[in-house]
């Protein structure tokens, strides 16, 4: 990575005896869009609030553009932030809200008016300048909050679950809009979310957090396809986990419910006799033996859920249940519960969880 624009170094945060962030490290390149993804209480918002200056780290430092900002007050950091609850000032119009930071910075009225008009154009709400926040929908309010955050041209943009309070349709359109504005302005952005689809769809990189630590930092492709830990594998996407036992470490043979699969080259460090957790994404599994798939297991259809374009099938293999999705085909009836069935996959798609 080139010289990082934002560098979070060995940051720890404790509230009394409770440590909520533990040795958190992250470098963010200029103009990069990084998401903090994790369940509630994993510390993602606390890290964001430390970058914003609302919380002071118990240890470690935060550097932005080469300057240590760890002890600076929030109003001295030149950072923009969008909150989950919009946080528009109810007594001010849309234009006054967007111009708030500019006025505080002492800009002249014509300059403020011009920048506010520019921002309203960017968020595609030019006709809303004189409205009050209560006269806007949730999506519009959050757009205004975004415009207000970027109007003073901050060095860094922080988004704290900005889409959580919106309905599903608005959420999808607004996240695309946020990403497009971010790319257009080239502003380095940290986005906090617990929604994996959101994180996967708009991020350059994702930091998956758990228990106050970054479990894995990587591109959405890496996070989804090569999860580094069991938690990441389980948290991101749907995963089938099978317990297996190494029968021959040298040749990569693993026994899954008395059936053998070959995982050559994937068992680094495992010895014969070790038990392993093996994981497969539903989309990597096919019903029946398919050409190109070098591994297969036999079982029985346990459940069939018709979802329209997709049919979700659960196949019982010994004590495990494996989910897979097949496309609906109007000429082929769905599988029947209780039927014997084989599933096949490429052993290269199987993940060994540590």
């Amino acid at each position, binding site marked *: 990575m080139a010289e990082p624009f934002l560098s979070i170094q060995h940051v720890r945060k404790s509230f009394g005896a409770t440590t909520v962030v533990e040795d958190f490290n992250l470098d963010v390149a200029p103009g990069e869009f990084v998401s903090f993804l994790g369940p509630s209480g994993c510390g993602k918002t606390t890290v964001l609030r430390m970058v*914003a*200056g*609302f919380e002071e780290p118990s240890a470690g430092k935060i550097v932005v553009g080469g300057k240590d900002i760890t002890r600076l*007050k*929030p*109003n001295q*950091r*030149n*950072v*923009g*932030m969008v*909150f989950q*609850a*919009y*946080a*528009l*000032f*109810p*007594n001010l119009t849309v234009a006054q809200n967007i111009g*708030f*930071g500019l006025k*505080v*910075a002492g800009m002249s009225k014509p300059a403020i008016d011009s920048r506010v008009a520019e921002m309203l154009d960017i968020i595609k709400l030019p006709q809303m300048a004189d409205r*009050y*926040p*209560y006269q*806007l*929908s*949730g*999506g519009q*309010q959050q757009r205004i909050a975004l415009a*207000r*955050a970027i109007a*003073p041209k901050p060095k860094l943009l922080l988004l704290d679950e900005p889409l959580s*309070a*919106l*309905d599903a349709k608005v959420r999808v359109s607004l996240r695309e809009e946020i990403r497009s504005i971010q790319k257009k302005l080239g502003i380095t952005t940290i986005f906090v979310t617990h929604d994996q689809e959101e994180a996967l769809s708009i991020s350059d990189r994702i930091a998956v957090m758990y228990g106050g630590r970054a479990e894995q930092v990587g591109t959405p492709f890496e996070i989804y396809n090569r999860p580094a830990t069991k938690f990441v594998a389980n948290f991101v996407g749907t995963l089938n986990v099978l317990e297996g036992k190494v029968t021959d470490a040298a040749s990569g043979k693993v026994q899954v419910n008395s059936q053998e699969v070959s995982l050559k080259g994937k068992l680094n460090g495992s010895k014969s006799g070790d038990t392993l957790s093996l994981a497969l994404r539903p989309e990597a599994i096919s019903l029946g033996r398919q050409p190109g798939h070098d591994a297969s297991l036999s079982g029985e259809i346990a459940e069939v859920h018709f979802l329209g374009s997709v049919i979700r099938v659960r196949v019982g293999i010994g004590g495990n249940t494996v989910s897979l999705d097949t496309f609906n085909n109007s000429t082929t009836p769905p599988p029947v519960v209780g039927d014997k069935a084989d599933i096949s996959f490429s052993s290269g798609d199987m993940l060994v969880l540590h």
Partner: protein
Amino acid sequence: MKTGRFWAWVVFILGAAYFFIPLIATAEFSMRMRRGAYSFDAYQIVLGDARFQATFMYSVVAAIFTIILGVLVVVPAAYWIRLRLPQLRPIVEFITLLPLVIPAIVIVFGYIRMYGSNSPLPFLANDTATNALLVIGYATLSLPYMYRAVDTGLRTIDVRTLTEAAQILGAGWSTIITRVILPNVLIAVLSGAFLTFAIVIGEFTMASLLNRPAFGPYLQNIGANRAYEPAALAIIAFAITWGCMSLIQILSRFAPKSANRPN
């Protein structure tokens, strides 16, 4: 259902009668100064009395200073407690209720003992200082109303997020309080201010014992020596109080509407 409604009306009429009959009787009596005819003579005498005008103006000025002092003390205190010290709220609420429990006469005797001319803070040494002490005393008496009004106003907005939103946009504490917090609780502050005004206008004990020319002692003096004028004064004082309440109602319609509810 109809029986229920009947009894509801009976209770309402009895309650209204309990409230309005003395008021109507007082108003009627205040207009009987001229024998055999209703007139506003008592009102003319009262309103034309130089002492009425002087004491009323004195109390109005005292009320304005009390409101300013109350706002300067209560708004930042209530804001800070909501923002940073929520654990102190029960204690502060208790303290603000004390003026309802401790009689004004006890407070004012305390003042007289504490701030006499030999005290390091000789509030009673001259008129200006005594006026200041009276305003401080009034601010204490109105504390339960002012604090509750402001605290209720703060409850309707997301104080913490609005503060953080303003901070991250570069605002300092004074900007946050004057441009974000105060405008959003202004109606609540005004409610507290009008309640304070109503209390100060009619207050007797403190003004009397500190020997200040306020409206309360004047009311008492007129009541002790005249027949019709006290009734007229009672109606005037009642009208002022109700005027304040009506203003609160009217102004509350202009309160900034909260937009923090996600749709």
